[in-house]
C-alpha cells in the first residue's frame, strides 16, 4: 500500500454505498482498511447486479467491487459478544473507525465511540447516519436515493414545468462518503498535531444540502427558489443538450461569452446569427432561447456527436456528448491517463473499474488490490494481525463467532 496514509489503519464498519465510499478514499491514499462484514446480513450491494454472465454471487457484484477496491474483508458475527471484543481489538489497533448504520445501531452493538475510545483513546471515529445523531428524525431510516429528494435537490432539478426529478444516481451516498472522508482527514491532521482524537456526527442528507448553496441562498435572500429549468442556466446561453444524428445521440453545448457564441455560429456556418438582434448579447439570447435552441438543434441533428465535439472544441466552444458507459470504458483520454483499474479478482477475473480521480506527485496513490471477496482476509487479520493460533481460529469458526 502506498500513498500519504500508508501506515494508517481503518476499522471499517460500513455497508451499502455511502460508508464504503468514505473508506475507499482512505484506501486510495494507502490506509489499511479492514471491512468487518457479516454472513448473516451481507452488505446489501453484494446482492445487487451487475454480475458477470448475469449469475449472482456475493463476490460477483460489480457495484460492490467498484466501491470496495483496495480494502480487506473479514467476517464476524457482531451479535456475539466475543466478536464484538475482536472488533474492539481491531479498533484498538486502528487510527480511524467509520460506520454508517442507522442512528443508534452502533451503540447497541457495543461499538459506539464511548466504547472504542476506552480501547483506543485517540481514535477518530465518524458515524454517517442518514439524518445525523441528534434531532427529532435522527432515528429515521435513509438511503442514498432518498437523500436527493429529501435534500431539496429534486425540486431544483428537472425539465421546465415538469415534476421534480431524481438525478440519475443515489447522489447522497458518494457525496456523504467524500465529505466524511474529508472530515476524518481533518480530524486525523488535528490528532497528528495535538494527540487528540474525536467523534464526528455526520448527517448524510445534510451533505447533499451543502451542495445546493445557490438554491438555499435564493430562498434565504428572496423567499423564492430557482425554477426547474431543464438544462438552461441564468448566466449562459446557449446552454443545452441537443439531439444529433443517430438514435438517442446528443451533444451538450455551453457558451460562456459572446465570443464563444460567435465561434459556435461560425462552426454552424451561420455567422449572421451572432449579429442577429435576437442573439447578439446574453440578455438577447436569454430572451429568445427557444428560437436559439431551435436553430442550433436543426444543425446538430445532421451531425455526428463526436465529430461535432472535436470541431467545436477546435474553435474554443465547450461541447461534449453525454457519455454512455461503454464510451467511457473505451474513451481514449481516460485510458491514456491510466484512470481505470483492472486488477485480478478471484471470481470475476479482470474487469474495468473507475479509479482514483486525483494524482499525487510524491506519495503516489494506487489501488493495490481488487475489492475483497467476503472474508478474504480472515487469515491475515485473525492470524497475523491479532495473533490467534490456528486452533483458536478453528474454535471461533466452530462457534460461529467468525466465519
Amino acid at each position, binding site marked *: 500500500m502506498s500513498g500519504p496514509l500508508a501506515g494508517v489503519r481503518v476499522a471499517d464498519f460500513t455497508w451499502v454505498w455511502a460508508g464504503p465510499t468514505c473508506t475507499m478514499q482512505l484506501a486510495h491514499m494507502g490506509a489499511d482498511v479492514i471491512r468487518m462484514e457479516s454472513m448473516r446480513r451481507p452488505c446489501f450491494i453484494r446482492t445487487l447486479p451487475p454480475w458477470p454472465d448475469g449469475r449472482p454471487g456475493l463476490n460477483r457484484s460489480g457495484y460492490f467491487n467498484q466501491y470496495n477496491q483496495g480494502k480487506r474483508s473479514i467476517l464476524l458475527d457482531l451479535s456475539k459478544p466475543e466478536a464484538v471484543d475482536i472488533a474492539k481489538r481491531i479498533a484498538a489497533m486502528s487510527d480511524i473507525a467509520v460506520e454508517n448504520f442507522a442512528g443508534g445501531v452502533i451503540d447497541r452493538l457495543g461499538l459506539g465511540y464511548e466504547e472504542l475510545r476506552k480501547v483506543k483513546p485517540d481514535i477518530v471515529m465518524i458515524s454517517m447516519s442518514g439524518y445525523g445523531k441528534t434531532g427529532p428524525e435522527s432515528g*429515521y431510516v435513509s438511503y442514498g436515493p432518498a437523500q436527493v*429528494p429529501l435534500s431539496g435537490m429534486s425540486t431544483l432539478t428537472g425539465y421546465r414545468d415538469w*415534476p421534480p426529478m431524481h438525478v440519475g444516481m443515489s447522489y447522497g451516498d458518494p457525496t456523504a462518503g467524500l465529505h466524511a472522508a474529508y*472530515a476524518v482527514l481533518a480530524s486525523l491532521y488535528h490528532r497528528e498535531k495535538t494527540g487528540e482524537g474525536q467523534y464526528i456526527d455526520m448527517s448524510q442528507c445534510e451533505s447533499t444540502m451543502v451542495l445546493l448553496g445557490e438554491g438555499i441562498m435564493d430562498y434565504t435572500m428572496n423567499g423564492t427558489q430557482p425554477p426547474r429549468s431543464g438544462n438552461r442556466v441564468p448566466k449562459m446561453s446557449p446552454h*443545452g*443538450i441537443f439531439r444529433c444524428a443517430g438514435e438517442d445521440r446528443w*451533444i451538450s453545448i455551453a457558451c460562456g461569452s459572446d465570443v464563444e457564441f460567435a465561434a459556435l455560429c461560425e462552426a454552424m456556418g451561420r455567422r449572421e446569427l451572432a449579429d442577429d438582434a435576437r442573439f447578439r448579447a446574453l440578455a438577447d439570447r436569454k430572451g429568445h432561447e427557444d428560437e436559439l435552441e431551435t436553430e442550433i438543434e436543426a444543425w446538430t441533428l445532421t451531425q455526428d456527436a463526436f465529430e461535432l465535439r472535436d470541431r467545436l472544441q477546435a474553435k474554443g466552444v465547450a461541447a461534449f456528448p453525454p457519455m454512455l458507459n461503454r464510451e467511457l470504458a473505451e474513451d481514449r483520454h481516460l485510458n491514456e491517463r491510466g*484512470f481505470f483499474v483492472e486488477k485480478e479478482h478471484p471470481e470475476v477475473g479482470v474487469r474495468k473499474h473507475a479509479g482514483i480521480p*486525483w494524482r499525487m506527485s510524491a506519495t503516489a496513490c494506487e489501488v493495490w488490490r481488487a475489492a475483497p471477496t467476503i472474508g478474504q482476509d480472515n487469515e491475515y487479520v485473525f492470524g497475523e494481525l491479532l495473533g490467534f493460533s490456528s486452533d483458536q481460529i478453528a474454535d471461533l469458526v466452530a462457534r460461529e463467532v467468525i466465519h
Partner: protein
Amino acid sequence: MACALEGLSVIECGPNIAASYASKLMADLGADIIKVESPAGDPARTLGPFPGGKADPEASGTFLYLNSNKQGVTLALDKPKGRAVLDRLLADADVFIQDYPPGEAEALGLTYQRIREANPRLIMASITPFGLSGPYRGFKAYDLTVASAGGWTAVNGWPGRPDMPPLRAFGQQTAYQAGVNAAVAVMGAAFQQLKTSRGQHIEVSAQECIVSILELTFVMWSYMEVPAVRWGQRPIHPIDFFECKDGWIFVLCLEEHQWKSFLDMMGNPEWGEWEVFANPFVRASNWDALKPLIQEWVSEWTVDDLYRAAQTKRIPFAPVSTMADLLNSQHLKARGFFAEIGHPRTGDLKYPGAPYKLSGTPWELRTPAPRLGQHNEPVLGGRLGLSPEEMASLRKDGVVA
C-alpha cells in the same frame, strides 16, 4: 476550543468554484485562507442569486456562500509584479489550491515546476475539467459539458421518454465534486506534510470525479455489457416519485423487508402476492403496471402523514423538499444546521451549515465573505510587509485593485 485546521495556511485562486469549495471546506474547520482574486473579481460574484434579483458583486449568494471565513486580496496574476507578490504569499503557505484551466495556468506561471521553487514543502492542487494530461486536457468546459463527459447527463432524464434530452442536475455539481475530492486529497497530503515536511503536486480531474461516482452505471458495462440508460440503472423497484394530496413523496423500498412492510401498510393488497411483483427485479420489469397501483393508494395521503407513517414502520420514504421545507424543518432546526451571519450588504442571512459535527473541534462561520480587495492592507501590507510606497505603486500599475 481550537479548530481542527488551525494554523494551516492556504492560498486559493482561480476562476471556477471548485477551488473555492475545496478551500471553503478547510476555512470552515479553521484553516487560514487567503483568496486571491483578479482585480475584476471572482466570476462567482456575477452568478447570484442576488437580493431582489439586482446584480451586485458584493451580494452574490454563490460567492457569499463559498467564501465566508476567508480573507480576500486582489492581484493581477497576468502581470509579473502580481505573480511576484503571489510567490511571496506562497513562500510561507502550506497549501495552494487553484482551478485555472491548464493553458491559462501555464500562461500565468502557475505550474508546479515553477511554484515548488518558491516553496518546496508546499502542497499544490490543480483542479481542472480533464486533468493535466491526455488528449482532452485543453478542452473548454463548463459544468454541463463536464457532467456529460463524465457520463452523468446520459443517465439522468425521464424514464420511458427518450424524446426528452439527457439532463443536468441543479447547480454546479461537477465543480463541487471536484472541490471535495481536492479537499480530501489535500488533507491526505497535509497529513503527510506534517510528518515529513514533504510538498507535492496534486492534480484533480473533474471528469474523473464524476466517472468515479456513477453508482453501478459504469460497471454495468464492464461486468455485463449493458448500456447506460436514462434515470440510472434501476435494477430494482419501487424507487420513484409519487404525488400525494399536497405535494410529492419519494417511495423507496430497497430491501425486501421494507417492501413487505409497505404492503402491510397498504392493507396487504392482493397484487403484492402476484408473481409479476414477487421480487425487486420483476417489480422493476413490471414497473409500468405496479406504479399506477401505488399511485392510487398514495394519492389519499398528505406528504407528512405518509412520511411519518412509513418511517414508523422503518420504510425509508422521504418528502420531496422545497427550500422552504428545509428552512422550516424542525429536525434541521434542532440540529442547528443553518448558520446565520451578517454581511454589510445583505444584512443577516441564513447559510447552509456543515454536514458534520466534530466533538473536539468546532465548525463555525466566523466572518462573512470578503469584499473585493478587503484584506489587501492587512495581508499584503501587514503579513507580507509591503511598504505604503510599494502598495501605491502596485495600485498604480493595476496589479492590486
